[in-house]
């Protein structure tokens, strides 16, 4: 009986390691090859580089115009994160506090957007009419709009748990609605706001379809599209492609490790409610 338990535990641990290996090896492959010479990287294997080429990264930044791309990605991510978090939490606050049926319906109308597919073709028309086509501002607005439903879903659920007594006390003290929201409610929302911001940032940073459709010029491309374009031109230099991939993924990995707790709580809320 005891032996069986030990054997079981070894088997379970082994399976866990094998699965982890399958999931991490492709990522390690990219990391290792980003330090190799072009010839050494042409095999794309897991052998450690014999000669460590750290200037691959500098070459990529210059050749791939990563400075502009990085700036674009930052503008899109930070811009849409700020706008989306701000507007969504304001809307959620009012929608969850009002007891009327119409507020409930409006909330459901927003949440329906989680499933709604984007019609890129007619969206282009709308963007053109609003003079947002091929502008950075347009891309920011789009990202904010597309992530609005899920953000409202998360913040609405959180605000519903904050007691109304707080609002009443603040109103009695003479708070205006704006003051009530910004100095009383907003600080209480910190946990859910961090979750929302981390998720929106990651989504925006990783996304490439909107710029693919709606920015005609390469100078407005984010890092994901820049790396894909680079891949098309330097398809023989896997060391450079890998270096480019590493640079594009570093911000995401950093945010992931810093905000792991928040990401998981955000991604699983709605799915699991206890």
């Amino acid at each position, binding site marked *: 009986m005891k032996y069986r338990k030990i054997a079981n535990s070894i088997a379970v641990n082994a399976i866990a390691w094998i*699965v982890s290996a399958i999931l991490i090896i492709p990522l390690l492959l990219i990391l290792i090859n980003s330090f190799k010479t072009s010839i050494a990287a042409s095999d794309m294997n897991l052998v450690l580089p014999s000669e460590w080429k750290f200037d691959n990264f500098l070459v990529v930044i210059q050749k791939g115009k990563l400075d502009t791309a990085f700036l674009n990605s930052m503008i899109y991510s930070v811009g849409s994160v700020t706008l989306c978090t701000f507007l969504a939490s304001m809307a959620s606050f009012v929608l969850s506090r009002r*007891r009327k049926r119409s507020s409930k319906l409006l909330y459901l109308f927003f949440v329906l957007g989680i499933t709604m597919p984007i019609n890129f073709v007619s969206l282009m028309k709308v963007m053109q009419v609003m003079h947002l086509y091929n502008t950075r501002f347009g891309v920011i607005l789009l990202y904010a709009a597309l992530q609005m439903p899920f953000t409202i879903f998360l913040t609405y659920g959180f605000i519903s748990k904050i007691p109304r007594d707080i609002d009443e006390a603040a109103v009695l003290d003479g708070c205006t609605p704006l003051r009530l929201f910004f100095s009383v409610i907003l600080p209480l929302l910190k946990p859910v706001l961090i979750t929302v911001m981390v998720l929106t940032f990651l989504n925006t940073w990783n996304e490439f379809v909107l710029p693919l459709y709606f920015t005609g010029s390469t100078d407005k491309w984010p890092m994901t599209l820049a790396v894909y374009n680079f891949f098309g031109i330097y398809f023989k230099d*896997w060391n450079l492609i890998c270096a480019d991939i590493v640079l594009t993924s570093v911000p995401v990995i950093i945010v992931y490790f810093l905000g792991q707790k928040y990401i998981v709580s955000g991604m699983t809320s*709605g799915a699991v409610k206890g």
Partner: protein
Amino acid sequence: MNERKTYPLYFVYGALILYVALCVIPGLIGIGYSFTDWSSYSDEINFIGLKNFATIFSPDENYVEYLSNTILFTLVTTICKSVIGLSLAVLLTKKIRGLNIHRAIMYMPAVISTLIVGMTFKSILNPQIGLLNESLRSIGLDVFALKWLTDSKIAFWSVMAVDIWKGVGYIMTIFIAGIMAISPAYFEAAEIDGATSWQKFKSITLPLLMPTIAVTTVLNVLYGLKVFDIVYSLTNGGPGYATEVLYTGVYKEFSQGRYAVGTTLSSVMFVVMLFVGYFMIKIMTKKEVEE
């Protein structure tokens, strides 16, 4: 306290305007445009009735294939992600050393851009120098060293496999949260009664996890129907039309300026998804309504 005064509606306007203008309106006018001959070749837009829909469902064109590919993709990835994700979740809620390391690693592919995952696997699945075939050859399994992405018979399966690789960690994480929410008292009671692991899984974990399974299924289905990124970055629909799905089809129509057909494909999707979405909302907001 006056509800209207304390919670003014203008708080909602910003979010509402953005959402309606950029999500709802394009969807609705897209349906309108699908009855026209809108294209980049002419400035005129004429009403042509159901002609676009006839084109899409006509057996002479490839669009039906896009549709069936999308459904196949959705079915296969949903089933595989659920089964593998659930097995991993059960595994990772047991006593394992370095549990948090495993969980962190397994979730990692989910946070990396799909475009990057696609490029990485283009290298790994390269028939000559790719890591997969090199490894297969080194252990003598030359027969299995296939042309993963360029053989039209297996390319779509390779795309689905990569997608499962990327997505399974996310589904697993949801399942882990679901299993952790089950009261340990059930398992302890079963332990005392001498239940085996399989019996515990079958009679406790699985039934109590049903709501979670419902949600992951809806998430997987929604994702599968909307899939674009992974196909675009791995094969871009090729070889031929072997891996073409609805959204890569829409992009192709868009880039060739055949806007009307593109918007018609999108509109078919729009209606299907709203239908699926209705059920999803019902599941996701169930608890709130009960409160």
